[in-house]
């Protein structure tokens, strides 16, 4: 009888490392205003280009003097991750990767600079030996610069500084690259809120 009660708990504990790392906390500068947390309907298209760069984590921040551009395989993954994050907002009718603004929408050039706090060897070892049951937190500073432009050439720029604190719960998630995109979705929402405050975007959406 006792075994039957304990079994679900043991199963849950065993499944925890397999479920991976999904928890995170996010702080951004500027913080979005509380009254604009919900996005208004826009019904415009978005074309996106992403220039992403890794920089080492030094003294709690990013070492901007030692950049490693994500201009290959990781760059392609990052662009697709951000495209998916903007598409998941349901704010834009269509989100594509491309250089030119769509006829009924805006183009966003997004510069991403990020790094992740490396795990110490003993934490990686402890995480491995406990099958990931010893969680630990990793900081990930991120600097985002977005330039939105429409087909008429009008531009709007915004910048966000973010710190993502994620809980690593398995050996894989102690690496320098996160395997889930929850923070990107929230950051895309906050960038879009800054864009949505622009009257030109509101009027473009209303005219369709």
């Amino acid at each position, binding site marked *: 009888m006792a075994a039957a009660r304990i079994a679900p708990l043991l199963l849950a504990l065993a499944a925890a490392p397999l479920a991976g790392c999904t928890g995170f906390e996010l702080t951004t500068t500027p913080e979005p205003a509380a009254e604009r947390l919900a996005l208004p309907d826009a019904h415009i298209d978005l074309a996106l280009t992403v220039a992403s760069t*890794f920089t080492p984590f030094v003294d709690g921040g990013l070492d901007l003097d*030692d950049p*490693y551009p994500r201009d*290959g*395989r*990781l*760059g392609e993954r*990052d662009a697709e991750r951000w495209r998916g994050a903007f598409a998941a907002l349901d704010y834009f009718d269509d989100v594509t990767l491309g250089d030119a603004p769509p006829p009924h929408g805006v183009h966003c050039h997004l510069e991403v600079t990020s790094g992740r706090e490396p795990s110490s060897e003993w934490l990686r070892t402890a995480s491995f030996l406990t099958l990931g049951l010893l969680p630990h937190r990793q900081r990930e500073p991120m600097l985002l610069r977005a330039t939105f432009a429409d087909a008429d050439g009008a531009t709007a720029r915004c910048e966000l500084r973010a710190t993502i604190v994620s809980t690593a719960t398995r050996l894989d998630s102690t690496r*320098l*690259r996160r395997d889930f995109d929850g923070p990107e979705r929230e950051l895309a929402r906050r960038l879009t809120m800054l864009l949505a405050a622009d009257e030109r975007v509101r009027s473009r959406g209303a005219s369709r």
Partner: protein
Amino acid sequence: MNAGLRALATGALLAATFTALAGCRSITVVPEAARLPTVAAGQRRDVTFDLRYDRHLLALDPAATDDVVAYDGEDLYVEAQRVRDALVATGAFADVRRARTPRADTLHCDLHVRYAFDAGTQLMSIVLTAGVAPDRHRGDLLLEAVVRAPGRTQARYAFRTESVTWIWVPLLPIGLGQLALQRPPLQQTVDALVAQLAADGLLAAER
């Protein structure tokens, strides 16, 4: 019959002993370089380097463009840290830094590492035969370097390193000992490059 079996057993034992003495990981660097020089602390100069790192998914073929992954972002950072550690471990330099743009007054190496790794049966033969059958892992590394030293014309170097590891239960103690004591393939390749730089007079600090 008994004598035949005894001869067979002796032969097998001798073969196993020979294999064990030969080591379960052999590393060959081509061309063979001179011994790594000892540079006095006051004589060491700074070096900067930049790195390209390609992982060949099949065999290492410098001309190949398919099945090659060019590392970028954090993947490249991890490899750059390994190369930096290897340069530091040669003990030939006062300071080692990555720099994408060389400075005119500093020794600079543009490094291109190509690497291929064949993991044999991915240890499946060990698992399926309870360690009775050996598994052969093979790594192939090509290091190409363009070296610019102040006041010298740029020089090009290439070293290719092949490492073969036999993973087999009877050889496990030797393998673990080698893992702790033997300089790994990347380190031996970087050692060869630095030894050649020293032989060519590129390590002498200018006073």
